[in-house]
């Protein structure tokens, strides 16, 4: 599902590479956790996958799409296949919860009737029933995070990328979010999760990839996280 072959990304010319010849393979329906300290290259990795950045060298293939052959006008089509939960949520502040989720469907041309049919189902999965008309600013951090997840999965992407989705949450809310991700993974979506949270990593018992200074320092099938 995700294939990286000796991928290097260097910002600017003289800097040390943010990612240094990373090779990585993720199977469909896998649940992968990427850990590492700030600056280890986690965000860069995700930005390469969403084609926000281009690799300095190396090959990236996601869902059968070779990024080297991807034309600019095809980038939106790629992004529609990948659901992303951003670290800072990236919700539209002047739209309600419902509208924020509906927005993802609007811009790929779903009819209003279909939107009204689909969005409540997804809000139910993430546990936001009854909060459809709230504005993002009226929600708690965990609720906002779940809106972001709902928006990321509403189009039923084959891959879900979640960047530190538990970053600003207390343990209880963090677990709520993780449970939602597991549920989505169970439905068949490949999940790529980055986190700092040691407890979550150890409890999940999933594949863990550890990044250090732009390199993969370990990749274990049922890993834990040592700081």
């Amino acid at each position, binding site marked *: 599902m995700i294939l990286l072959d000796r991928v290097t990304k260097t910002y600017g010319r003289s800097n040390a590479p943010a990612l240094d010849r990373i090779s990585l393979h993720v199977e469909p329906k896998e649940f992968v956790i990427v850990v590492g300290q700030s600056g280890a290259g986690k965000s860069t990795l995700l930005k390469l996958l*969403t*084609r*926000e*950045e*281009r*690799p*300095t*060298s190396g090959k990236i293939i996601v869902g059968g799409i070779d990024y080297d052959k991807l034309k*600019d*006008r095809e*980038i*939106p*089509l*790629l*992004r*529609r296949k990948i659901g*992303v939960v*951003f670290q800072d949520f*990236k*919700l*539209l502040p002047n739209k309600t919860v419902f509208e924020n989720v509906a*927005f*993802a469907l*609007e*811009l*790929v*041309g*779903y*009819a209003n009737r*279909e939107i009204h049919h689909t969005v409540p189902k997804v809000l139910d999965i993430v546990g936001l029933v009854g909060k459809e008309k709230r504005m993002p600013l009226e929600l708690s951090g965990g609720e906002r995070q779940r809106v972001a997840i709902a*928006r990321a999965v509403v189009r039923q992407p084959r891959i879900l990328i979640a960047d530190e989705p538990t970053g600003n949450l207390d343990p209880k809310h963090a677990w709520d979010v993780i449970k939602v991700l597991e549920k989505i993974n169970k439905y068949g979506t490949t999940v790529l999760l980055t986190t700092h949270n040691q407890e979550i990593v150890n409890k999940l018992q999933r594949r863990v990839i550890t990044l250090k200074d732009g390199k993969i320092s370990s990749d274990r099938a049922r890993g834990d996280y040592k700081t």
Partner: protein
Amino acid sequence: MKPTGMRRRFITMERIFTTGLANFLRNAWLAVAAMTMMLVTLTIVLFLVISNATFSHTISQITDKIDISVYLKDSVKPADKDKLINDIKQLSNVKSVDFISKDQALKDYQDQNKNNPDLLAAISQTENPLPATVQIKPKDPNKINDIRDYLEQPEVKRLQSDETSYSGDRKEAIDKITQATRFLRETALIGVIVFTIISCLIIFNTIQMAIFNRREELTIMRLLGASTWYIRGPFVVETIFYGVIASLISIILVGSLFTVASSTFEATSLGLLDIGYASDYFSQHFWTILTAQMGIGILIGAVSSVLATRRYLKFKTTK
């Protein structure tokens, strides 16, 4: 269930349009500046077109009166006369040739002077003193040399009784008018170009301001996989509204100006600018003018908004 092809495209188009309309209403005050600029530009263009048509009309009216009169001797045989007329018709700069016989010339003279019995009496006492005339209308009154050369040939000159009249004095006046209109046209053209550029820049800025206010939203849209036209479309729709409204106001403005002016100056012409003609021209070509105005307005709007959004829609290309 995913919507398919055509339907999806239609839904998307509809969303682009409604978003554009909403933005237009939301940015109303910002829009006023852009529309005013466009209005000024379009009105200048409209004035240029109408005054150009009017001047051309005036000039052609005057130049129509320019002719060359060749007076024939009474002794010229009909065959020679016909040959002369035919030869003149062959010249490239000749628009038309009229023949006025001696009788016709007399009749015209009598008509023109019917209130002057002395002149009529004088002429009726003698045998018809008026010569038969060949009247030549040149296509371009500025280039009558070839006609003149032909008429100056000895065997042609032989047939003529008097000096040929070239309306020389009128030609000078026409030259001056032509020069003046050319100057006006050029000045107006420069004005149009300058105002078009300014109005493009202002609209460009308006859109950039609107984008700046919503850059976060645009970034999010981009990350969620919105296509370039889904993001750009509403801005283009918005500026097309500017164009349509500005062109309508411009037409209404100029139209009512003509209505007022033509009733005030009824049938008088203000020097070269024949208000009556300009007003007629405006109403006769109303739909063409309306379409053209809207076309220009829409073009200005669309071009500047496409340029303004381009920078924000680029994907990263650096490796």
